[in-house]
């Protein structure tokens, strides 16, 4: 009998790679990534040689700076892009109803997970490989030890494995790509920085606890040299760049060994993520469509009802909610009485859930922080801002794209309701949500204002004079809130109208806001690198092209570069006030066109209008 040759068959991986290769965007994204990456390296290189005109040979031995920048860039790329690349790996199959077909083939669940995992890793590796020649170039310049080179590659590799495994786990657990996308970033954020935040705030004496653990670990024979930063190491135990930073200065085999030892937790989590992804693959393969938000609210309802049913309150109902049929505005009625994020009852739950811990934490922080800028409150405000953006992105982009995805839009568009009226009613629920989210934001802002005001009496000679300017802080915060929130609603609405599917619309909205926030900083970096003698004052206002800039500067009261808080506030107000008007007009002026129907305005077309036609036969659906 003829023996068959041993063949390695990875059909799913082959399919993943073929799909990737067939997408035009694969090549576009890769090219953009390469250009950005090489551009950065070029700027860093130019900066390195800028002071060496007289002796170009002096560049030798200075490869370290380029190398380190490159490695940190690669880490950033992994943390930013890999979750987005991997989070759809299983959910895509679930959304296409093709996971069941995969499961009835001879492929085992572990093969499916591993091949899918490998497919996405290869995608990321193709991105990272673009940097290899540059790493080699930096290495050839000298100044980079072999240990540093090995450590960098090792840490990049295991970080990539860890983040990809987390993405696969979230994808295996969640039903939709949107929920997997959000889950991957949120879980990833808390995995990397959650302990650090708790440690920094020393909430519930967590910092003290870590410090005592660190002290006890110092007694261990090998670990004594590494646990000398008061517990900081334990906070960033999952964070690859931290360990690269710790060990990049050291050389020799000991450094490589140390990096390997301290990367064991990362490897363990990677392994655990894959085990859990495998566990959930079949168990959560055929999930019915669930409204997680609604379920969350229902469980909150049960908790609140339980709390309310006590001897004192005896289940008292302060506001009785009555669902009445719509009088004149049916779409607004549906948005505010039939959707989880628009209903008064659930919005009140969100408010209580956010407001009570915020008040509690504010008090806790205030009692332990004798400075005008309260770190805890600042972080809290940013977290609530993040939550606000997330909730607004989900709710506002879904207004139209949700109707389109559920195929209910066409019917609505054939009613005589005008486009503007339709959008005005649609937005009613999001406005309510926005008002509810405004309350915790205002709470923190007012708390900080009060704290600065109190502090201005007791410490008039504080080194950061802007930290005591409570009025400027209050005005800046209020104006920012009053502009940013409607601006975000209109922007997300517009994205929801332009992007056809709800999932893509939400991901686009979140991606766009992240890029918008960080891009000006990234762009500013090469400008300074290219010309270090550049007059910073002339482009410092360019940072306000990021909406996050003013929020950050106002919170940490860093107005030294500007000399006053009022001019930055004015610049920011003009930029984002303009954006608000622009997004609003984009939504309203082309509303019918964006919705996909004829406008109410009279537009006549000539009967003789010629249309561009091709001679090709039609093989497409209408």
């Amino acid at each position: 009998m003829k023996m068959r040759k041993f063949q390695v068959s990875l059909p799913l991986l082959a399919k993943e790679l073929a799909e990737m290769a067939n997408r035009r965007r694969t090549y576009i994204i890769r090219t953009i990534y390469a250009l950005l990456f090489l551009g950065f390296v070029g700027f860093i290189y130019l900066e390195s040689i800028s002071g060496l005109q007289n002796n170009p040979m002096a560049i030798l031995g200075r490869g370290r700076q380029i190398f380190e920048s490159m490695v940190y860039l690669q880490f950033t790329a992994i943390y930013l892009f890999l979750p987005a690349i991997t989070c759809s790996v299983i959910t895509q199959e679930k959304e296409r109803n093709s996971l069941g077909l995969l499961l009835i083939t001879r492929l085992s669940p572990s093969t499916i997970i591993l091949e899918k995992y490998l497919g996405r890793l290869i995608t990321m590796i193709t991105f990272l490989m673009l940097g290899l020649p540059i790493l080699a170039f930096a290495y050839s310049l000298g100044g980079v030890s072999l240990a540093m080179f090995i450590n960098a590659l090792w840490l990049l590799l295991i970080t990539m494995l860890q983040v990809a495994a987390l993405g696969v786990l979230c994808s295996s657990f969640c039903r939709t790509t949107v929920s997997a996308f959000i889950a991957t970033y949120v879980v990833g954020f808390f995995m990397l920085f959650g302990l650090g935040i708790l440690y920094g705030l020393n909430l519930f004496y967590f910092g003290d606890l870590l410090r005592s653990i660190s002290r006890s670990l110092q007694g261990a024979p090998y670990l004594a040299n590494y646990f000398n930063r008061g517990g900081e190491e334990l906070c960033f135990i999952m964070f690859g760049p931290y360990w690269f930073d710790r060990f990049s200065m050291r050389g020799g085999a000991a450094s490589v060994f140390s990096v390997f030892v301290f990367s064991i937790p990362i490897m363990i989590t990677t392994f655990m993520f894959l085990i859990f992804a495998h566990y959930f693959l079949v168990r959560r393969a055929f999930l019915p469509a669930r409204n997680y938000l609604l379920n969350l609210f229902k469980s909150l309802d049960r908790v609140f009802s339980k709390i309310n049913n006590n001897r004192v309150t005896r289940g008292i109902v302060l506001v009785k909610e009555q669902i009445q049929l719509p009088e004149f505005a049916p779409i607004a009625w549906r948005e505010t009485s039939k959707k989880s994020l628009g209903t008064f009852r659930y919005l009140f739950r969100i408010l209580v859930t956010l407001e009570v811990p915020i008040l509690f934490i504010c008090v806790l922080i205030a009692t332990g922080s004798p400075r005008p800028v309260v770190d805890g409150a600042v972080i809290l405000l940013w977290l609530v801002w993040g939550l606000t953006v997330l909730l607004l992105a989900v709710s506002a982009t879904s207004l139209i794209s949700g109707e389109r995805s559920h195929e209910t839009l066409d019917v609505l568009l054939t009613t005589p309701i005008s486009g503007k009226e339709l959008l005005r009613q649609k937005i009613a629920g999001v406005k309510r949500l926005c008002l509810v989210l405004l309350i915790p934001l205002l709470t923190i802002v007012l708390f900080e204002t009060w704290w600065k005001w109190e502090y201005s009496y007791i410490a008039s000679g504080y080194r950061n004079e802007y930290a005591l300017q409570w009025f400027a802080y209050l005005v800046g915060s209020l104006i920012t809130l009053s502009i940013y929130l409607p601006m975000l609603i209109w922007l997300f609405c517009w994205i929801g109208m332009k992007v056809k599917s709800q999932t893509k619309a939400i991901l686009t909205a979140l991606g766009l806001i992240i890029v918008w926030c960080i891009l000006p900083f990234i762009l500013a970096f090469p400008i300074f690198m290219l010309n270090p003698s550049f007059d910073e004052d002339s482009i410092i206002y360019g940072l306000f092209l990021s909406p996050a800039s003013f929020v950050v500067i106002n919170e940490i009261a860093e107005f030294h570069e500007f000399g006053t808080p009022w001019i930055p506030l004015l610049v920011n107000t003009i930029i984002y006030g303009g954006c608000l008007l622009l997004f609003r007009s984009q939504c309203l002026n082309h509303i019918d066109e964006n919705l996909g129907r004829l406008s109410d305005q009279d537009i006549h077309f000539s009967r003789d209008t010629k249309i561009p036609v091709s001679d090709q036969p039609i093989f497409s659906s209408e």
Partner: protein
Amino acid sequence: MTVKMNELFLSEPVIDIQNISHSFKGHRALQGVSFQVQPKSLHGFVGPNGAGKTTTLKIICTLLRPQAGKVEVFGNDVNSSVKEIRKRIGFMPDHFSTYRQMTVYEYLDFFGAAYGLSLEQRDQVINDVLTLTDMDGRKDSLISGLSRGMQQRVSLARVLVNDPDLLLLDEPASGLDPRARIELMEILQELKRMGKTIFISSHILSELAELCDSVTIIDRGKVKYSGTMDGLLTHEQEHPCYKLTLDSEVEGLVESLASEPGVMNVEKTGKPRELRISFDATLTTTGNLLSKIIELQGSIESFQRDKKHLNQAFLDLTEQGVR
């Protein structure tokens, strides 16, 4: 109320489409499409996948602007009288476009309000349409809990909420089981009796043949036929064709009939004791043929005009090939 066909084509058309064209990214979805739909008629719109049916429907219901040509609905141009048209039409797309987390009553009330009806009017109208669609007992049920057939009825009830003069139905019977399909067709017949004009796009040809007064067949963006259903089923037949069914076999009957003057063709249909006979009406008559059959001791079970089946007409008019 049954509308006679000759009366039907004398009145002003409800839908008047003249030479419309539409392209998507270089693909010609519609090329010079023209047809009319008469008032109070049930007009079938048939075509293979990718023929341009949905594009045409979207243009009629003001969701898409024709890039060339003219479309009038109730005499209103779709480019300029959008609001007037929207008030008088009811559109049912080819998918269940319902809000699943609403009850049937809430859903219908929602659309009643969207059409500007007052609360009292809405209550009256909703009860009427629920009775018409036989959904009285389910008005407080959540739509998500209803079967596909029931959901389709809810969609139909929704279309009727604003009492439209023209119903535009895109594949209303797709995905329904036979019973639900039959019940839906009965409702459509009832609506036709009530004087509504119904424009129905469907793939289920047998049902269209029974229901429709007129039909338009479209293929690859071009109209292949538009006119009465009878005209479609009999056109291209030069000589009258009849089907004869006998109680029992008669030896030599086929040969004897074939030798009769004026008889063009006699053939067995494939069914037991059934023959198809075509003849030149100028040379002989059905009376002569029947006399001959009786003379040959044939016991007649039935003798009727043989119409071409809609399936065959559809296949004859449309081109082969995957779209």
